[in-house]
């Protein structure tokens, strides 16, 4: 029983860590701002979820479990919102996505910064 939980927990933690790593890699390697924010924004939410789940499976006290759930909820709310805010701010500031050749591909109404 407890071993099973531990295995599951380890697996969750591993997946979480791996996702974080990919996110970081994407953040470093992707060509433009929006792709980067996408890379870490998406993976981060999921990765944190896995890590928290893994920790949840490990703890056997009620209080920490409640706390972890609360953190999970909070992250689920805040992380996408933060990504959204960043992207929006960048758009408002006049940052535009690029294609593979590095040129601006999209031109939309609000061109003024």
């Amino acid at each position: 029983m407890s071993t099973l939980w531990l295995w599951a927990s380890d697996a969750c933690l591993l997946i979480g860590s791996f996702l974080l790593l990919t996110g970081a890699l994407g953040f470093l390697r992707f060509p433009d701002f929006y792709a980067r924010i996408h890379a870490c924004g998406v993976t981060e939410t999921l990765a944190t979820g896995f890590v928290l789940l893994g920790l949840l499976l490990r703890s056997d006290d009620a209080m920490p479990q409640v706390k972890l759930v609360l953190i999970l909820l909070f992250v689920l709310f805040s992380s996408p919102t933060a990504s959204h805010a960043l992207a929006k701010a960048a758009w408002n500031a006049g940052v535009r996505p690029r294609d593979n050749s590095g040129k601006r591909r999209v031109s939309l109404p609000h061109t003024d910064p």
Partner: protein
Amino acid sequence: MLCLLVATAIALIAVRGLLASIMLTSVYGLLSASFFVTMDAVDVAFTEAAVGAGVSPLLLLLTVAIVGRREAASNARRLVVPLLLVTVTGALLIIGTLDMPSFGSPDAPAQTHVAPRYLQQSGDEIGIPNVVTSVLASYRAYDTLGEVLVIFTAGVAVLLALAPAGQGGSARAEPPAPEHLAPHTILQVVSKLLIPFMLLFAFYVQFHGEYGPGGGFQAGVIFASGIILYGLLYGLPTVCRVIPPPVVEVLAAVGALIYGLTGVLSLLAGKNFLDYSALAADPVTGQHIGIIAIELGVGIAVAAVIITIYYAFAGRLHTRED
């Protein structure tokens, strides 16, 4: 962990441009908070996370929003003297460490002289599990009073520096600034959901400080963060309507006074200043009451001062745009 810190600091030296520097500062604060956790200093970690990664980058950001993010290239010739100074100071510090007790040794004087009493007897004398809170709020309560007055002084100082004329000294907001933040619907909705929880959490931290990490200072910072978030999203005028600056300023003074008057109460009861055992028939109960009272004072003062400082900076931001 420490290597990460070093890397961050070196990056800070290398990087030019204030915005990046501020982000690195924030990272530095968060990393040191994590380091504090590994050093068993959970209370400190909590505070450092709130301050080093939260409040101080926020203030830096506000400043940079006012003064601009550009940083001039530094003059290479000006580096010689600083390098020399740093080398000498560093060498002296290294020399100083050579005769120190080893890291983590339980036999070091710091571990054997004064601290053991806190660990062994605070349970009986104060009656709460968090020894840091015991020391902070009772054994060295006077330092903490000093700390509250330091933060109060900072509030006074910022107001003295930034208060606009003609408003009785308070950093009241200017008439509505251009509402460029209006379309942030998603943010506003989410934050509306979150802010009550933040405030609730602040109260939790406030009153849970005796049992776990936390206390008035951290609670005050979190509470203030909630208000500041509100201000950032809904604009300064809105938040100023909800919590008017003069009220906050009065609260800052009141917080400090609550702390001080708790001490004066014990004076009047014939004991020494801040000796809470005078507050109730049973000394340990007295300590409890005292600690709750002063933590409340700390919380109010800290929250009020940080909000005041925010108002002052944000007010400047708007003034500039006019």
